[in-house]
């Protein structure tokens, strides 16, 4: 009976804990809590787990150096399974129950948009790094900062590059039937209009589609010279394997959500030479190698295997947040952290161009670079 009473008391205490909120929670003399909600289960876990590893690396690095002004950072991670309602609940849990001081992450683009009212109302300092979409920084929210580059800018950069490199060629495009696909298409269309590109194939596929035989056959028959593969991971692999089977090899471009090294292994020779755009360094470059060297002792073997580009975006965001909290000195508050985040100017993270925000500027607008796949070394290399 006493055990039951104890359980009920604990449950009640957990439920009622909202009444005892301190002004700026999550900071004690020895500890600072940082929260995060990511998809850690299901297919999108590939990005959620990788991003959380990036946060862990930055936190472990800071803790090994003595923490933030003597305070160790504790990372509170919650799984949302890529379900929007669960993202909202997860964010409320880490803020209200775990009482974190600041947030990193958060999940996918639709999920981050949905939690904006919660974050804004709570006023908690937040740095978003997983899925940068315009609705997250337009309009600018006082406490929400976004590290990255917009999907629109990324696709415009890639298509411009490929158009300049392949003048007068015909184009093909396939996109997913979701907001990601629409963004890719909008970016593509704007360059098509500006550069008067000749598009001979334009298709849309249903999210989750696995068989691209008819789509790629249509692409082949259209005789497109340049192909923008608007899939994410499995879709791009299926498309490239299908093109290989059909014995056609257009100049192909992919976007950063699918720019993950294991993809090249699965594509095999079909993936050789494909172009990609990204704002984080490729692992084959000097900066990428240095990052892997740094990460190795800070994570487990399993986590090390899960590192991909999202680990870099997560690492950069966590570095920026930690630096801002550190600049607040011993007296750490939300107001100070937000103010210091706003003052972030050319912060070097080693995994992307220096990061800056400013008064009213909540988006870091990272510099983009084009890279090309090398099937022999299973890596992406920067294009000069």
């Amino acid at each position: 009976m006493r055990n039951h009473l104890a359980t009920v008391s604990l449950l009640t205490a957990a439920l009622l804990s909202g009444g005892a909120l301190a002004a700026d929670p999550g900071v004690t003399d020895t500890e600072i809590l940082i929260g995060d909600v990511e998809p850690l289960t299901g297919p999108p876990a590939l990005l959620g787990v990788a991003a959380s590893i990036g946060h862990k690396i930055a936190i472990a690095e800071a803790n090994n150096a003595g923490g933030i002004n003597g305070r160790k950072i504790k990372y509170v991670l919650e799984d949302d399974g890529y379900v929007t309602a669960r993202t909202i609940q997860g964010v409320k849990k880490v803020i209200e129950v775990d009482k974190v001081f600041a947030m990193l992450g958060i999940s996918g683009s639709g999920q981050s948009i949905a939690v904006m009212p919660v974050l804004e109302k709570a006023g908690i300092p937040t740095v978003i790094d997983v899925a940068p979409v315009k609705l997250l920084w337009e309009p600018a929210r006082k406490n929400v900062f976004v590290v990255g580059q917009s999907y629109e800018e990324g696709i415009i950069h890639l298509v411009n590059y490929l158009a300049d490199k392949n003048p007068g060629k015909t184009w093909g495009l396939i996109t997913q039937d979701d907001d990601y696909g629409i963004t890719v298409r909008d970016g593509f269309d704007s360059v098509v209009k500006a550069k008067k590109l000749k598009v001979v194939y334009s298709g849309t596929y249903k999210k989750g589609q696995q068989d691209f035989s008819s789509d790629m056959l249509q692409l082949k028959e259209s005789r497109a010279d340049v192909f923008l593969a608007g899939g994410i991971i499995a879709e791009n692999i299926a498309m490239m394997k299908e093109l290989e089977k059909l014995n056609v090899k257009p100049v192909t471009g992919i976007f950063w959500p699918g720019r993950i090294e294991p993809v090249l292994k699965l594509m095999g020779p079909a993936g050789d030479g494909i172009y990609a755009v990204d704002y984080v360094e490729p692992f084959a470059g000097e900066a990428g190698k240095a990052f892997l060297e740094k990460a190795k002792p800070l994570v487990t073997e399993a986590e090390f295997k899960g590192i991909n580009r999202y680990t870099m975006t997560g690492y950069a965001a966590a570095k920026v947040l930690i630096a801002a909290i550190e600049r607040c000195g011993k007296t750490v508050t939300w107001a100070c952290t937000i103010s210091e985040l706003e003052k972030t100017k050319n912060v070097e993270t080693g995994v992307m161009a220096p990061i800056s925000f400013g008064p009213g500027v909540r988006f870091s607008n990272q510099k983009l670079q084009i890279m090309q796949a090398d099937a022999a070394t299973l890596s992406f290399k920067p294009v000069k």
Partner: protein
Amino acid sequence: MRTGDYKQSYGELVTLIDSPPVWLWSTVLVLALVVAPYVLNAYALSFLTIILITVVGALGLNILTGYTGLISLGHVGFLLTGAYGYAVLVSKYQLPPLVGFLGAGLVPAAASLIVGAPSLRLKGLYLAITTLAFSFIINTVILEMRWLTNGARGIAVQRPEIFGVSFESDAAFTHLCLATAILTLFATLNIRRSRVGRAFVAIRDNDTAARVMGINLHAYKLLAFVTSAFITGIAGALYGIYLSFVNVEGFPFLLSIEALAILIVGGLGSALGAVLGTVLIVLLPEATRLVFSLFSAQMDAMFTTGAQELKSMLYGLVIILFLRFQPRGLVGVWHDLKRTWVNWPLRY
């Protein structure tokens, strides 16, 4: 002292609440729910809100599957069309929220006529697959009708203001959900005890016999679809407001399965079962996590970082256990408890 459950007139049989203590406890429960938003923290309150929204949806599905015996695997389609019905009318065309709620009910009700028509000839698994197909078709229709729905980009939804009362705060929105859930509960209980409700149950129990008794199967099956879709659509509107952003990704197919799980665990064909099933299914993962966290921090971490996989496993396990050991669901357990309490120390 009450010693049994004796009904002496037809009126007593169809009465909603048959004893003063039940009235008293129901009032206490409603009062507690009214006060709860002011006492609970935002996280706990989010569970209460989700429970109330899910109760509305589960009661909607209960009319079709529980009362009428028509299995639907595509109810998430009605939830989605309800959410879009509200979002398009209120966010896009700036109409009053009450018009939005009406649209949220009418749009899926109209869609249910399309999916309901085949139900006149289909039963069981075949109907389940038809409704499943509907939920996929409706996703594609919404994605393609960009001029109206913004396609995959979705529509942002604000908290409503009705007759000058703002539901902007979490507490106020929970009160709106509570009021809707209570109204829906009364509506479904009243449907059940009416001529229409008895016709639904007759169709469920034996449609040939029902037809012989003069029940128009076509009309009543379509009516069950329309009523169920209307109520589910209202739940969809509330869910869309809760998410603050309506797009097809926010309404995964899993919600249809979750709704069926609620009815099975609660007890098919019972409004009380739908409520009890909702409470159990929504709180099960969190309650399990809280209990395990008392024993070990590692178990707690496992539940937070692998929550969704464990949640699916828990749902599966609970459904299997209920089907094997308590096919009448939670409402069966409740009735057994009541009987034991009334008849003790006698068994019957």
